[in-house]
């Protein structure tokens, strides 16, 4: 009997507490800074081209093999605007397979890929989350604006090395 009453007291006392539920679709739980959503590509707004050179390092190390990348010669490099000799031609991540592990971000030498805060990607068809370069960059730009993203400085040298 006593145990029951004790339990009842606990439930009664919690009536006075502030509610903790987030009414999800209307109200979102705030996202932490480090939150790892799906990986997206970053946009270099100074030269207006993606950071990604299509070097395929991330593709090789992705544990689920959910990405593909193709490299091409950078036209802006020929004009002397950009330092990148090669640039990404096409890039695809299948978010349906991505397990959000962050390995691609760790291995990329160019700061080209970043874990965004994107997590609500419900779609009607199974294949609708195959994201191509345009969509990835668009999501990336949204993330850059949101968080005031800056490339890490040490990336500059390795860039020159790898593209030569």
């Amino acid at each position, binding site marked *: 009997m006593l145990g029951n009453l004790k339990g009842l007291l606990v439930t009664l006392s919690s009536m006075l507490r502030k509610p903790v539920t987030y009414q999800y679709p209307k109200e979102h739980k705030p996202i932490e800074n480090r939150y790892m959503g799906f990986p997206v590509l970053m946009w270099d707004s100074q030269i207006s081209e993606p950071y990604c050179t299509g070097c395929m390092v991330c593709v090789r190390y992705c544990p689920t093999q959910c990405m593909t990348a193709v490299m091409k010669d950078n036209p802006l490099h020929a004009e002397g605007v950009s330092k990148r000799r090669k640039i990404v031609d096409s890039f695809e991540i*299948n978010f349906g*397979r991505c397990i959000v592990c962050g390995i691609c971000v760790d291995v990329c030498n160019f700061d080209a890929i970043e874990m965004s805060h994107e997590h609500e990607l419900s779609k009607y068809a*199974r*294949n609708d989350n195959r994201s191509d370069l345009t969509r990835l960059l668009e999501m990336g730009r949204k993330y850059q604006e949101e968080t005031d993203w800056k490339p890490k400085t040490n990336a500059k040298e390795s860039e020159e090395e790898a593209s030569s």
Partner: protein
Amino acid sequence: MAEKDKAEEAIEPINRLDAKSIALQAMLPGIVSDFKVTINTAFDLVVVAVEPEEIKQICLLLRDNDETAFDYLLLLCVVDYEDYLQVVYHIYSTSLKHTLVVKTNVSPEEPSLESVTPVWKGADWYEREAHDLFGVSFNAHPSLSPLLLYEGFEGFPGRRNYEMPEYKEW
């Protein structure tokens, strides 16, 4: 042959034994003197390689002897070395707190071994799993029905030569 070399060298002793294992290594030969065994070390554990026919007697002996008292089966697993399958028993003593590795080799064609379920009941599902994935059959096991795989599964997916079905992305 190259594979075999690789396998053999994998057991090459790097000696990082702690005090308990050293004591165990010293007293083991006296205990298992009736059997044909080789005592080795692997990193920080003592390894006893035994003949497949004698596995159950040795396990019983190791469990019931007061000096060893291995009453707890940590892990039973099968390693496929292509030329032979190695069944590895990690056993532990809850009273004396030392660990021992018992190994035995069986041939990959129709491998069969005496079950250790009478020694440690906990070997039950491990053996069923090994039967599923590696095709090692354990004699005198209560029931070797498939555990992790479904009934009628073809092949032994744990083995290294198992052909993975092609995964097609749509």
